[in-house]
């Protein structure tokens, strides 16, 4: 089936060439970082994780969200989703690949990566994160491929694939729970030291991931002959609405605990993010953008009329994507490091090369996603099953 990724129209190749160009630029920047060191980025002794780890965290959420189409389909027997599970699984493959790449570009000594396996350390959450992410990647490639091969031959998927599908459901929850534990178990980082972190991560994952999936479904609907189905997209819209409500609710719970208790350590990061601390306010405009988009998303998703209409649902989903990306892809990591353990504010902002390396990783993910979606859709167009 892989050969289907290598045949395509002019537009397909222009798009792929563009992505390859971005990847190439990112790779050149990475070589520079490799020679010079991570000093090429905006990180430093106070904000020691930055854009890379933040993107990683956001994308773990996107990866986990594949479960939101698999779960209704297999546990609740909601059969219309059978058409879109493959899109969810392949989105997870692309997202986990990006996650792993963001970890790699963040390592100071990537050449010693195998020390993670040569000296396995079960008390380190990073060890478990490596395990769950790699297994999740395998599960999604495997399940997606087996299901699609069966579809191509016009036969039902083999029965032995079922256990893998059932395992993949709790596994999706595990990847984001373990990723939350990377942060939630650190003493002295009050912003992260919260029991609700894993729940918040899951809520934000289950709105941002399906929102992305809706956008991709609408794109697929427009540019190919394959129609994921209006009902399916609307059901996904409902999932996004619930998850976004939970996500914002959990965030408000954090605000209550911090500001009603008035414990300085719990308030400082929030103050830094939303008002600025000691004259440092770089993230303030971003965080208020987050608020605006989160509110807009809630309105568009809660009002039934705008949720059911595909155009307004699309706008709502884009609002969710922007809001959750700012929350997790910027605020969470930078906010957790500010102020530093000595109570000082040192600001962080990614540098040009750091941004281009990140863009290169994103482009790799989009390239993988395009190729996988191309394969899936070609198989379906060929079979002629879901022709519009």
């Amino acid at each position, binding site marked *: 089936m892989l050969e289907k990724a290598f045949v395509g129209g002019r537009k397909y190749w222009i798009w792929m060439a563009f992505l390859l160009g971005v990847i190439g630029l990112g790779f050149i920047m990475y070589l520079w970082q490799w020679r010079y060191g991570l*000093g090429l980025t905006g990180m430093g002794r106070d904000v020691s994780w930055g854009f890379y780890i933040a993107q990683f965290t956001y994308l773990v959420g996107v990866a986990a969200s594949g479960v939101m189409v698999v779960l209704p389909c297999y546990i609740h027997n909601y059969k219309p989703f059978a058409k879109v599970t493959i899109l969810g699984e392949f989105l997870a493959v692309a997202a986990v690949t990006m996650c792993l790449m963001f970890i790699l570009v*963040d*390592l100071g000594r990537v050449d*010693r990566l195998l*020390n993670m396996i040569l000296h396995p350390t079960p008390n380190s959450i990073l060890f478990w994160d490596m395990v769950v992410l790699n297994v999740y990647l395998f599960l999604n490639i495997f399940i997606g491929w087996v299901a699609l091969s069966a579809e191509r031959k016009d036969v039902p998927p083999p029965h032995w694939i079922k256990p893998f599908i059932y395992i993949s459901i709790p596994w999706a929850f595990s990847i984001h729970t373990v990723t939350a534990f990377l942060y939630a178990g650190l*003493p002295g980082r009050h912003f992260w030291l919260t029991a609700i972190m894993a729940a918040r991560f899951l809520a934000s994952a289950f709105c941002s991931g399906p929102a992305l999936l809706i956008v991709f479904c609408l794109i697929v609907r427009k540019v190919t002959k394959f129609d994921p189905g209006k009902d399916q997209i609307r059901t996904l819209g409902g999932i996004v609405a619930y998850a976004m409500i939970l996500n914002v609710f959990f965030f408000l719970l954090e605000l209550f605990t911090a500001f009603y208790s008035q414990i300085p350590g719990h308030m400082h990061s929030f103050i830094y993010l939303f008002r600025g601390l000691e004259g440092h306010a770089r993230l303030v405009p971003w965080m208020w953008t987050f608020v605006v988009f989160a509110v807009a998303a809630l309105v568009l998703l809660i009002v039934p009329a705008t949720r059911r209409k595909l155009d307004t649902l699309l706008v709502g989903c884009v609002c969710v994507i922007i809001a959750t990306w700012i929350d997790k892809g910027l605020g969470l990591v930078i906010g957790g490091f500010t102020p530093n353990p000595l*109570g000082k504010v040192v600001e962080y902002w990614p540098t040009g090369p750091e941004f281009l390396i990140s863009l290169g990783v994103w482009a790799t993910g989009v390239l993988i996603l395009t190729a996988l979606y191309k394969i899936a859709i070609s198989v379906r167009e060929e079979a002629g099953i879901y022709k519009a």
Partner: protein
Amino acid sequence: MAFDRRKFLKVSGLSVLGVWAKSAADALAGEKPGFGITEKLLHLFRKPVGFASADALTAKKWAMVIKVRNCPTDCHACIDACDYVHNIPDAEKMPSPRHEIKWIWQDEYKHAFPDQQHEYVEERLKKLPFLLLCNHCDNPPCVRVCPTKATFKREDGIVMMDQHRCIGCRFCMAACPYGSRSFNWVDPRPYIEKQYPEYPIRVRGVVEKCTFCAERLAIGKIPACVEACQNEAKKHGREPALVFGDLEDPESEVRKLLRSHYAIRRKPELGTGPQIYYIV
């Protein structure tokens, strides 16, 4: 018959195996002549003896007491000594203050003890320099999070760092509530003022921190900062500010000081069990 594919694969496979075996044997044999594979393999099963010599300083639990009153603001003897014997790059020469490497450094009371800061704090405290370094925690979060055991706690309480195993993930820096860990954001070599050949210079991409001078304890010397403090105090006829010793020995100087003075530790509420005590 010509050199067909089957034969080619056989020969190339064997040559790869041969090269690998040779390099593996070389690696096992080590650089010392006469220390062959057998000895090396046997060595793997022996209890590690380390490199401690007969006159090594040992303890059940190393700790440090800092008598802040005895620490003059303008004295940097301990910091300079540490920076020199550990090849710490000069912060001012580095491309950015973000990249600074710190093992032991001075900061104000309000930053050393941010939770105990108040508006009307004693004038004297405001001016006193507080020496900050790795706390060699009893229950170190950095060790808990390290995915490769590159940072580990020794039986004598020292939290050590293996800079040859560190993969540079910086999880330990996120976990340390004292900001005591530094990462080599750039190659430190060009910024080292005067190289000290007896201690390795780090490569870029690894984390480092104070090790209570484990390399000096092993040859019977006290930590460089403590030695420098004692020398400087003697020169000026005053009491040294830094005291180093075994917390499990009731007769050690650190225990005597803690028995007779009120001492505070940084962020004790986090349960890390810091082993640096401040007498203010």
